[in-house]
């Protein structure tokens, strides 16, 4: 269970989240929605212990482990995995080199180099990307869609148990979006990870079918519901669905 209690976060002098609370049961899928700039990505970054976000007060525990006492590496080794909106490009560092180093350093690599490459090749086929991606520099000179698929290549190899998908659907065409969604669904069915997805798109919600949908406004979650809440938002908008008081938001 991920439990975020009374969390207040700032970056620079600006408070982004205030008394933020969220609980996600192990193996469930939750969606986080809200206007641009509401602080959705901040949650993703704070969970991954990005140093640019300072926790002023509150707590975050994952299965009773205090995430706030961990650094980014430790959180990742706990099984958290972030796919950001625009994954970073790292020239000169190949996917294979990074993945093999990470798995070796965590003592999780049971494959010899041949088996390791065979596993990567199979995942590439599944993601409909050329096997040359294995030795390509991380996200370097890749299109938006290729970057997201490349991140899923990492996911399948590192086998995390908690996915944070920060607008993974942004910049994807219809076919790529379906492929990415289906791949995450397949991963969910095989490994049963917990998923926190941040999205503005209907397609991914339809594929992954979150059990709970949360709406973030004014630095905290103001409403939680089931998938019907997302449907209502898509039909009527945040204001139309009487979820967000526009005047209050602007203030």
């Amino acid at each position, binding site marked *: 269970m991920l439990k975020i209690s009374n969390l207040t976060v700032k970056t620079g002098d600006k408070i982004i989240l205030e008394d933020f609370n969220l609980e996600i049961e192990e193996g469930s899928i939750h969606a986080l929605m809200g206007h641009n700039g509401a602080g959705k990505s901040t949650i993703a970054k704070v969970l991954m212990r990005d140093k640019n976000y300072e926790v002023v007060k509150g707590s975050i525990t994952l299965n009773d482990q205090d995430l706030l006492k961990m650094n980014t590496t430790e959180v990742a080794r706990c099984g958290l995995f972030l796919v950001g909106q625009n994954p970073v490009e790292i020239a*000169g560092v190949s996917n294979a080199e990074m993945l093999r180093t990470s798995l070796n350093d965590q003592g999780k690599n049971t494959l010899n180099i041949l088996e390791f490459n065979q596993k990567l090749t199979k995942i590439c086929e599944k993601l409909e990307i050329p096997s040359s991606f294995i030795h390509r520099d991380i996200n370097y000179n890749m299109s938006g869609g290729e970057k997201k698929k490349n991140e899923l290549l990492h996911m399948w190899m590192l086998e995390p148990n908690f996915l944070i998908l920060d607008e993974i659907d942004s910049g994807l065409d219809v076919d790529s979006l379906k492929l990415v969604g289906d791949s995450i669904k397949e991963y969910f069915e095989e490994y049963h990870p917990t998923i926190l997805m941040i999205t503005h798109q209907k397609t991914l919600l339809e594929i992954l079918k979150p059990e709970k949908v949360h709406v973030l406004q004014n630095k905290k979650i103001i409403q939680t519901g089931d998938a019907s809440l997302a449907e209502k938002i898509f039909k009527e908008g945040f204001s139309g669905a009487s979820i967000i008081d526009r005047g209050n938001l602007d203030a």
Partner: protein
Amino acid sequence: MHKIKVEQNSLHLKEEEVVITEFLDSLKLIVSGTVYCAIPTFQSQTLEIVLEENSHLTLEFFLELQNTKNKICILNGENSQLDLHYSCKYSGENEFRIENRIKTNHNRNVILIRGVDNEGTLFVHAVGDILEDTKDNAYLEDIKVITSHQNSIKIKPDLKVSSNAVLASHNATIGPIEENELFYLESKGLDEATSSSLIKDGFLKGIINEEVFKDL
């Protein structure tokens, strides 16, 4: 690709791919046709490069410098090209001087220098001199160094352009590792030291043919 140990002060390369594993204190490299040359060690030595007419040299260095004073002098023949990729990790006190006097026409020289500070200092003196009455020449210097200590690196550009018909530029960027790259690798389960090392190595390998140097 063949490897050679040069025991004389002059070497003529013609339409070949070569790794120069060793050479004396100074070496005059004469280039005809299209040549690829890799140099894995460069220790307080001088290299004089003479590009013959219509030649194209790709010259790559992948170095660990420690207390070195290196010098490269370049002389272009008409319609010649040079791609010089100098990648180094430096410790101790180091100086690198590169001189390029262009007296002929239709040349294109691209000089890329990448450095990673390994608790040392590096002084790069880049002299570019494009003489009057020359035309259609292109000259680019691009220097990038990763260091957290600004005073570990000193770059002195000395670009003198006396011709009106030339494209010439000098660019230098000095700074620490990008925080977002470090965060990204750490978020994949790598620790800070390993992430930092991968990023630095990747940065240095980015301008050279990695496969060639991997075997050395």
